[in-house]
C-alpha cells in the first residue's frame, strides 16, 4: 500500500474491517477479564491494555505509510463522511472530555453544562458556514485558505501565529494527559509515561501523516466510546434496573434534589445560574452564555478540526460528515451528565453521613492516589460531613467502575479509552501544527521549488521536533498550561473565525481588512487574558477570562468590516474565485499568483 493511493477495496471494505476490529477488541477485553479471574495481577492487565492498544495504533500507522503529498496532508481525499465523522469525534474529544468533563458536571451542576453545550453547538456553524467551502477550495491547510483568499504572506503568517498559539498549549495538555492516565492507572512513572505517549503519537502520525492519523482516529473512537459507555450503562442497570443511563438519570436527579434538602446543600445540582448561596445571579448567567458562545465559535475556528473536512471525497460528503461528527461527539456528551448524576447520588446516599471507618471501598482506594479524593474529619465526630470530602474533576469517570463494583478489567478499559482520547487529539493537533510549519512556512514561503521528497522529509522532521518540544514542556507539569487549554477556544475564535467566515460570505472583505481584524481581535483577546491572569487587571463587566473571545470577536468583526470598506474592493478575479468556491460543482478559479497542486 505504501506509495500508492488507498486501494478502492480498502475503502469499500471499511465496514467489515472496523467491524472485525471492534469484535477483536471486545474479545481481547473478555480474555483479559478471564485472566483477571484466574489471578493475573491488576498491574499486568493494565499494561497489557495499554501495550495492545498502542500496538494496534502503531500497526495502522505503519500500514498507512505514504510517500505522496496529498496522502500525507489530506489522506488522499477519500475518507467517507461516516468515518470522517468518527475520526473528527476522537480528534475533538480530548482527555478533558473523556476524563474531566463528567467531574466538572459533578462539581458545578448546571454551571458545567456550558461545556456540554459549547463543545457541540459549534458544529452547526462548521456545517453551514465553513466546511463545504473549505472542502471546495481543496488545498491542504487552513492558512492555505487565508493565503489564497487574501493574497500574499501576511494573512498566511497571521493565521499561522493564531494556529500555533491555540494549538500548542492544547497539545502539551494532551501529552500531559497521557502521562497522567498512564501513571495513575498502570503505575508507570510520569516522566516515562510522557515518552510512552509521545511514541504512541509519533508512530501514528509520522509515516502516514493525515492518512495514518485518520484511520487510527477511527480505531481510537471505537475504543473510547465503548470504554465510556460500559461503566455507566452497568451502573444505571444496577441502580434503576434499566441500562439506559441517558434516560434514567432523571431518577438520580430527583434523588439528588431530595438528598440536597436533607443534607442542607444550598447550591442545588440542577439549579441554573445560582451563586454559592443558591440565589439567582445575573453574573453567573452572563458568564454561562459567554462561555457557551466562545466555545462554539472556537470550535468552528480550530484548525485541527477544520482540516478534517479537507479529507472527504466531495463537498457533499464534507457537509454530511459534519453531521456524523456531531452525532459521534453527542454520544459521549449526552452521557456525561448521567455519569455526574449517578456519582453524586452514590456520594450523597452512601458516602456522606456515614461513619468514616465504614466508607465504601472505592473511597478508600482513591484517597490513596494523591490529589484525587481527600477525606478529612474536620470536627472529629467520626462521621463524614458534606464539607469533609473533596473530589477532583478526574475522579468521577475513573471511579465509576468501582462504584458499580466491576472487576479491574473495566478500569483498564476506561484507562485505554482515556488514552485513546488523549492520543487521538494529540495526533490531530500535532499534525495541524507541523503541517502549518512544513507546508505553509517551508514550502509556500521559503522554498516553493522543493521536491515532493524533500517536502515530506521536512514535514516529518518538524513533526518530531514539535512532538518532542510538547513532551519536554509537559514533563515540567505546568499547571498553568492545563488551564490555558480553555483559552485556546477564545484565541482561535478571536483570530480566525472572522477572516474565514467573511472570506466566504462577504466578497467585499479585503486583505487589509482581514489582517487588521485578525490583529485587533487576537490582540484584544490576548491582552485581556494576560492582563487579568497575571497582572491583576480587573474583569470587564465581570466576564471571566476563559471567555475573552467575547471581546475579541466583535472587535475583529468591526475592524475587518470598517477597514475593508475603507480599502478598494477585491479584484474581479478574486470575486470570481469566491463565486467558484461557493458552488460545489465546477473548477476552483484560483487567482493568478496562487499555486494549484
Amino acid at each position, binding site marked *: 500500500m505504501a506509495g500508492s493511493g488507498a486501494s478502492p477495496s480498502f475503502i469499500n471494505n471499511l465496514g467489515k474491517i472496523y467491524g472485525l476490529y471492534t469484535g477483536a477488541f471486545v474479545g481481547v477485553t473478555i480474555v483479559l477479564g478471564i485472566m483477571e479471574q484466574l489471578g493475573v495481577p491488576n498491574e499486568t492487565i493494565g499494561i497489557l491494555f495499554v501495550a495492545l492498544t498502542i500496538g494496534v495504533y502503531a500497526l495502522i500507522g505503519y500500514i498507512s505509510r505514504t510517500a505522496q503529498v496529498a496522502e500525507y496532508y489530506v489522506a488522499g481525499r477519500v475518507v467517507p463522511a461516516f468515518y470522517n465523522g468518527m475520526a473528527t469525534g476522537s480528534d475533538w474529544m480530548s482527555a478533558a472530555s473523556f476524563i474531566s468533563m463528567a467531574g466538572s458536571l459533578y462539581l458545578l451542576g*448546571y454551571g458545567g*453544562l*456550558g461545556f*456540554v*453545550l459549547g463543545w*457541540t*453547538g459549534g*458544529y*452547526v*456553524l462548521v*456545517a*453551514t*458556514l465553513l466546511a*463545504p467551502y473549505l472542502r471546495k477550495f481543496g488545498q491542504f491547510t487552513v492558512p492555505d485558505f487565508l493565503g489564497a483568499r487574501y493574497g500574499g504572506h501576511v494573512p498566511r503568517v497571521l493565521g499561522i501565529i493564531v494556529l500555533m498559539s491555540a494549538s500548542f498549549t492544547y497539545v502539551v495538555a494532551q501529552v500531559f494527559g497521557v502521562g497522567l492516565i498512564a501513571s495513575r492507572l498502570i503505575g508507570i512513572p510520569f516522566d516515562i509515561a510522557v515518552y510512552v505517549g509521545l511514541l504512541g503519537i509519533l508512530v501514528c502520525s509520522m509515516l502516514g501523516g493525515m492518512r495514518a492519523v485518520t484511520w487510527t482516529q477511527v480505531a481510537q473512537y471505537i475504543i473510547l466510546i465503548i470504554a465510556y459507555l460500559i461503566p455507566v450503562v452497568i451502573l444505571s442497570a444496577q441502580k434503576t434496573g434499566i441500562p439506559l443511563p*441517558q*434516560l434514567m*438519570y*432523571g*431518577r*438520580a*436527579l*430527583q434523588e439528588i434534589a431530595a438528598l440536597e434538602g436533607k443534607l442542607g446543600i444550598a447550591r442545588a445540582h*440542577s*439549579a*441554573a*445560574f445560582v451563586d454559592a448561596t443558591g440565589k*439567582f445571579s445575573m453574573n453567573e*448567567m452572563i458568564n*454561562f*452564555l459567554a462561555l*457557551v*458562545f466562545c466555545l*462554539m465559535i472556537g470550535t468552528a475556528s480550530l484548525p485541527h478540526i477544520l482540516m478534517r473536512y479537507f479529507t472527504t471525497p*466531495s*463537498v*457533499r460528503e464534507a*457537509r*454530511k460528515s*459534519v*453531521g456524523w461528527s*456531531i*452525532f459521534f461527539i*453527542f454520544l459521549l*456528551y*449526552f452521557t456525561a*451528565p448521567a455519569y455526574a448524576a449517578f456519582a453524586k447520588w452514590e456520594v450523597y446516599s452512601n458516602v456522606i453521613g456515614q461513619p468514616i471507618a465504614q466508607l465504601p471501598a472505592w473511597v478508600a482506594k482513591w484517597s490513596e492516589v494523591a490529589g484525587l479524593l481527600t477525606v478529612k474529619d474536620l470536627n472529629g465526630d467520626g462521621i463524614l460531613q458534606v464539607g469533609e470530602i473533596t473530589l477532583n474533576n478526574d475522579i468521577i469517570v475513573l471511579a465509576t467502575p468501582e462504584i458499580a463494583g466491576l472487576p479491574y478489567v473495566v478500569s483498564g478499559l476506561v484507562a485505554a479509552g482515556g488514552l485513546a482520547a488523549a492520543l487521538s487529539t494529540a495526533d490531530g493537533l500535532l499534525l495541524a501544527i507541523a503541517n502549518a510549519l512544513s507546508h505553509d512556512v517551508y514550502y509556500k514561503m521559503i522554498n516553493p521549488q522543493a521536491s515532493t521528497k524533500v517536502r515530506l522529509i521536512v514535514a516529518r522532521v518538524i513533526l518530531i521536533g514539535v512532538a518532542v518540544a510538547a513532551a519536554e514542556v509537559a514533563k515540567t507539569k505546568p499547571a498553568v498550561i492545563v488551564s490555558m487549554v480553555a483559552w485556546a477556544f477564545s484565541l482561535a475564535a478571536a483570530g480566525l473565525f472572522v477572516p474565514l467566515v467573511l472570506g466566504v*460570505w462577504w466578497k467585499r472583505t479585503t486583505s487589509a481588512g482581514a489582517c487588521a481584524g485578525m490583529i485587533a481581535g487576537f490582540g484584544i483577546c490576548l491582552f485581556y487574558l494576560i492582563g487579568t491572569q497575571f497582572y491583576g487587571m480587573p474583569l470587564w463587566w465581570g466576564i471571566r477570562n476563559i471567555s475573552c473571545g467575547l471581546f475579541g470577536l466583535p472587535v475583529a468583526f468591526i475592524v475587518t468590516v470598517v477597514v475593508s470598506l475603507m480599502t478598494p474592493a477585491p479584484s474581479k478575479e478574486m470575486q470570481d474565485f469566491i*463565486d467558484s468556491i*461557493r*458552488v*460545489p*460543482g*465546477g*473548477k476552483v478559479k484560483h487567482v493568478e499568483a496562487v499555486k494549484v497542486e
Partner: protein
Amino acid sequence: MAQEKSLSKEQQAAYWRRTSTLMWTVLALWFFFGFVIHIFAPQLNNINIIGFPIGFWFAAQGSLVVFVVLCFWSSSAQNKIDEEFGVTED
C-alpha cells in the same frame, strides 16, 4: 470532478440567495437553542418530566439533539438546492 458548469450571473445570485436564506434559518435555530432557551432555564426548571427539570435537560441533552438534527437537516436541504440549480459535483 464535473466539467466547468457556468451559472449566469442571475442564477449565481439566486443560488446564493437561497443558500443564504438557509444559512440564516439554521443560525436562527442555533441561536435559539444555543442561547435564548437557556435564559429561561430557571423558569423551565419548575417543570419536571420523568425526574428531569426541563431547563437542566435542555442544556444537558435537548439542545444537543437539536444541534445534531440541525446539522443533518441543513446538509440535506443544501443538497436539494444544489440539485435544483444543477451545481452538484459529478
